[in-house]
């Protein structure tokens, strides 16, 4: 089940980004996307998983900068995130010699993943749809607050996680 969803999400991420770049007539950028997707399908080593997420998110950000469709870029990014997470889950399952309640674990995992990513997508779309006007100073202040808050959160998480 997870494996199938991994293929679907990888395909989705690839197609969304390729379509976005094709719409923007930036064909050259589709090559690394397709190349990486082929590498992943051939079952390349573990570190490619992280490279894949890095590249897909990076390309989505570049695409947004270039003015490519937000929906496709967001879809590509979220699908890549799902593929990355599923791959990690799958590896943990493979490493374990014995897995109790495998089906229940997979089901609960997928349920939560889809809810989280769905909520993330909805929030992102909502953030883009709602228009609130800020002065440059307020925007800068809010941005700084976000960065500081995020730094503190990540710092806390790193301390908490062994």
């Amino acid at each position, binding site marked *: 089940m997870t494996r199938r969803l991994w293929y679907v999400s990888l395909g989705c991420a690839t197609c969304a980004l390729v379509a976005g770049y094709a719409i923007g007539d930036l064909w050259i950028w589709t090559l690394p996307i397709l190349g990486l997707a082929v590498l992943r399908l051939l079952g390349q080593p573990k570190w490619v998983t*992280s490279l894949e*997420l*890095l590249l897909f*998110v*990076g390309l*989505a*950000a570049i695409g*947004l*900068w270039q003015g490519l469709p*937000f929906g496709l*870029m*967001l879809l590509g*990014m*979220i699908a890549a*995130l799902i593929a990355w*997470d599923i791959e*990690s*889950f799958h590896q*943990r*399952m493979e490493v*374990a*010699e*014995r*897995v*109790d*309640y495998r089906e*229940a*674990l997979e089901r*609960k*995992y997928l349920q*939560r*993943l889809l809810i*989280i*990513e769905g*909520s*993330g*997508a909805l*929030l*992102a779309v909502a*953030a*883009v749809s709602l228009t609130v006007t800020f002065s440059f100073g307020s925007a*800068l202040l809010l*941005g700084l607050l*976000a*960065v500081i808050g*995020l730094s503190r*959160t*990540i710092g806390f*998480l*790193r301390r*908490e*996680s*062994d």
Partner: protein
Amino acid sequence: MRRLLLLSVLIYALLILGLASANGLIIASSIPLVVHLTATLFFAPQNLDLQVIRTLSADRISQGIPVTVTVSVTNHGSHLEEVMLEDIVPAGLEVMEGSPCVLSEMSPGQSILLEYTVCGVRGRHAFQDFKVRAGDRSGLFHRQAVLHASADLIVLPHVSWLRRVSIRPLQTHGYAGPVPARLGGSGVDFFGVRAYQSGDPMRWINWRLSARHPHAFFTNEFEQERIADVGLILDARLRSEVRVNGQSLFEHAVHATASLANVFLTDGNRVGLLVYGGFLDWIFPGYGKMQRERILQALARAEPGESMIFDKLDYIPTRFFPARSQIVLVSPLWEEDLPILIRLRARGYQLLVISQDPVSFEAKAIGSDPRASLATRIARLERTLLIRKAHQIGIQIVNWQVDQPFDQAVHATLGRIPLWFRAVGLGQRG
């Protein structure tokens, strides 16, 4: 941790890029990543409160016998979404069936049972640690703990059946046993003749001798058979260990010592053990099944070791062995050991050396290179000479080529040669 770092870097990068380019879409695109991170944090595991109980189906076994290890893990803490439980199997044990590792979900109060079968090499194997790694479903955050659940498994050396080993110490005990006591009395083997004393059974009178002396009667005496003190010395010096193709000569020595201890104790003798290697490990002389267990456990923990002091056999504590008793040394035997053996003989000990042949053991791995063959031949000559010297000073030596069964090697050297065989001049031992 790397995954957490990667996700954080991506969020930062998107925010900074969005701010720098004043592009709200890029900032908005970071929201799914932020949601992913915070949601995962929300479900991150709390403190681990697990109880581990480990039980073994047997705590002492012989080599090759499987043991079932059962580990029960109970969660007394909060719900764990994904937990990896791993029992650390001591080196020297091999998992034959089942798995010491499980990935599962644990509700509060839930127990998980791990059951697996191990088989091991000789030695004392201590189960100590049990590793727990709990994480969220995405694997971004985790907590680890090493819990302690001690259990010891002793794998005793292999003991093979031996026919009776004939020894003749100068001193024996007062109780009946299988060892010829060098004393006249009731027994089986003819010992001598003495003047008749009233009360002697008629069938013991030596009529042939009495006929030659008309005024006297003579009675046959038989050699008394008693139990004796036997001191086993296992040479555990590093120089006595030879390893060829994963096989160890020392393991053969341990096997031989265990088999000898078993046969001597079965015969009712008082047996002690000294392991002479990196340090001295000894078992005081004793009788019976308890003593057998003590000796086997000492042999189970015996390892070859190096020590500057015990590099030569000079420091064998002779006071450990009763005077004029039987000493059995299990050692490959080296040239410099001979003076110490002479000294032991001079003190009245009867010496039996079980010498596992290192030359033939190592020669198997050398191959048929002419130079190697020549070297092997020289080493074999040196060994033959050493064994001959030992014979000359009255030491019994069993030159054991370890690919031969131990019982066969012992019996061929120490067994009683049939009378008719000796009568025709065959079967003489050098």
